[in-house]
């Protein structure tokens, strides 16, 4: 170590969390990432040619949490880079477009492939473009909400409907990730009424982590 650097008064702990964003093309993976990191939304579509990376640091008192977000291009030709986005990730966000139910259906395949590389990651199911979703037929909204809830239950993943353009539930996604990873209890109330931007997370996505978090029983009894 360099001796010229004076000793730090309060050395911080940095915890790096890699997050993978996965889903069909044009569901809004890059938008969500940029919105969260930069708080910017751009209507224009830019195809991701590979894997996009952005990082963001959150300071929580004396600890820093570094989100390392990797966003995989949704086109099929980039699927060979899936290991890059999923391997070693602490959380994998599966995104689908609320206005295109077929993108929800393909979550099955994304989930199979991503969990094939990483079973430990906390999965999250995120429906995007909620602002456009509210324009849809109420019956269709109801069906899509229920179907995505079933998917979330099957995946044991928190379910979040978000709108990047209207800043709905974007920050929450990443707070939920921290809550699930570090076994914290979030205060944000769940949103369960169909038609609202669903936010259901309390009893989903905890099993994998709780298994690993409790792997040190002596820690738990302290």
């Amino acid at each position, binding site marked *: 170590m360099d001796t010229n650097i004076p000793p*730090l008064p309060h*050395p911080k702990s*940095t*915890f*790096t969390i890699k997050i993978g964003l996965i889903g069909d093309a044009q569901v809004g993976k890059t938008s969500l990432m*940029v919105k969260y*990191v930069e*708080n910017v939304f751009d209507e224009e579509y830019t195809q*991701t040619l*590979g*894997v*996009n990376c952005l990082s963001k640091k*959150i*300071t929580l*008192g*004396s600890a*820093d949490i570094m989100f*390392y977000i990797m966003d995989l291009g949704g086109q*099929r030709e*980039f699927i*060979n*880079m899936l*290991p890059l986005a999923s*391997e*070693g990730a602490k959380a994998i966000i599966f995104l689908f477009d609320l206005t295109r139910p077929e993108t929800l259906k393909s979550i099955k395949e994304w*989930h*199979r*492939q991503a*969990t*094939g*590389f990483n079973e*430990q990651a906390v999965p999250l199911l995120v429906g995007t473009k909620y602002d456009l979703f509210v324009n849809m037929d109420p019956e269709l*909204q109801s069906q899509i909400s*229920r*179907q995505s*809830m*079933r998917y979330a*239950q099957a995946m044991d993943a928190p379910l979040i409907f978000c709108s990047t353009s*209207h800043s*709905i539930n974007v920050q929450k996604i990443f*707070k939920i990730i921290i809550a699930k990873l*570090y*076994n914290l*209890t*979030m*205060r944000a109330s769940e*949103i369960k*009424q*169909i*038609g609202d931007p669903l936010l259901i997370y*309390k009893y989903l996505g905890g099993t994998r*982590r709780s298994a*690993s978090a*409790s*792997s*040190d*029983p002596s*820690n738990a*009894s*302290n």
Partner: protein
Amino acid sequence: MSIRPVNLEDFTETSFEDVDTTTSPVNWAKSVRSRQSSPLKETGGPPSSTSSESTTFSNNKKRYSTHTESDDDGEGFLDEFEEFRGKSPSEEVLKKHFTQTPLATGRGRLLEENLNEVDDEMDALTENFVKNTSVSSRNLSGITGNKLSSGRSVKQPQSMLNLRDAKKPSFRGKQAHELTNSRSASNLRAGHRLGPKTVRYKKSMPVLSKYDIIREEDEQDNYKDEFEEDLKIDRNLLQPQFLSEDNLKSPLNLSPNQYTITADDSLLTPQLHKRHREWIKPSQLNMFREPLRREKRGSKYTDGSKLSASHRLKTIKQEIDHNTPMKKGRMVYNPETLTWEGNEQALSKFRDVDSFDKKAIVIQGKPDLQVLRDRKSSTALGSRPRGKVVGRMMFDQENLRWVRIDGSEKDPFAEIPDYIPAASAPTAFTRKGLASKRSQSQFGPIRNELGGRFSSSATTRFHSLGATSNSHDPTFNIDSKTLERFYHEENRWSRKVGGWFIPRDTEMEKFEDGQGLPDSKNNSYMYEIRNMVISSARN
């Protein structure tokens, strides 16, 4: 595979520095892991990197860049979590939380997997222990509570709520309210799972008893649950004859023929609530808007120095053709389908999602079939135990069809002839059948192939024969006698006229049809003719 950070000169440090820029897919795992892993993994101790902008403190092995955007509303963020609510985020509290998991996950995956089994056992044991002691703990806490605040009732579980309410008002509130809405069993279970762990970090609170905290979040639900658990324990103590076997069977192992099974959409997703209010209009979207983050403090982010997202966004491009097959762990990349194959069992989780009837909840007996089945089951069912019986039908496993148990099967189509007479199609079919039969006869390949020349005669011959011998069922029923007669007939025919056709001729036709004939063979006999002509001319 190479990684190309955009605007590299803007960053003195990039997080990709650690990554080998010429990694092959084989190296992916290594590079990814080393890049993202927590410092704790590397050193086993707390890292020394700091958070100040563009300052990097390195530990022994790795350097972690800190050029990333920092969110200064840490306290606001902390406030979102119940554990830090109302507390100043002291280092101890934070460390306690954040060090557990990375340490635990920092172990090798194999080790973790092994541990998971043990952990599950531990969890089960802990849960069991909590269950078994819940009554005593409740009493204990009641007594303690009584000491603390006289006048509270000890025996009523409700008093516990009151006690806690007075002690720790911050832990009550929205959560309890929400839990009353959710009735699904998974909710209760998850609450249990959370339970033992909450003990750890709330120890410092002036609690009444250790197990009191377990009911922290979903008090009312857990009370119900606990009473049910108590009942279960009592049931185990009962004599076995009182326990019905029905519990062991799967409740959904029912035949749809006997029950009306309705997939109730709202029951299947109990977490979701039906809409009572007006549907959200686009103009109302602001209701859900997340509060804007606070402006960044300090002069770190001046407009000039702050980089836009498009500049900071780094793209890892693929340099491997996506047609290259790969293997990674248990997954194999199939370049034709552009998918990773493997982990198929993950799909089984979704099986029930797509076919709702498997998760049906509303089941009603069909009265008419119920009666019928009761009557039949005593008689016919006993005599023929084989095959699956549903109602009055039994599945014939050999012929793969359903048959009536009582044998009183009436064929409503008995009077309708199977054969529908048609003018041309059956004729062609019959001829084909005939030809294939003949292929087994002594004629060999010559007669097998009905060349163009034969076709007319063969067809006419069939018609004459078919009219006489096969009047009953002209399509298929050719008995052996008729067939024999065909052979004799054809034998005679070929003896009579066969000399007129060179056998080689048909063979050649066959070759010309598509199989192709070597030129030498073809030409050799042309040459013979030529030689014959030349020699005769010479003479």
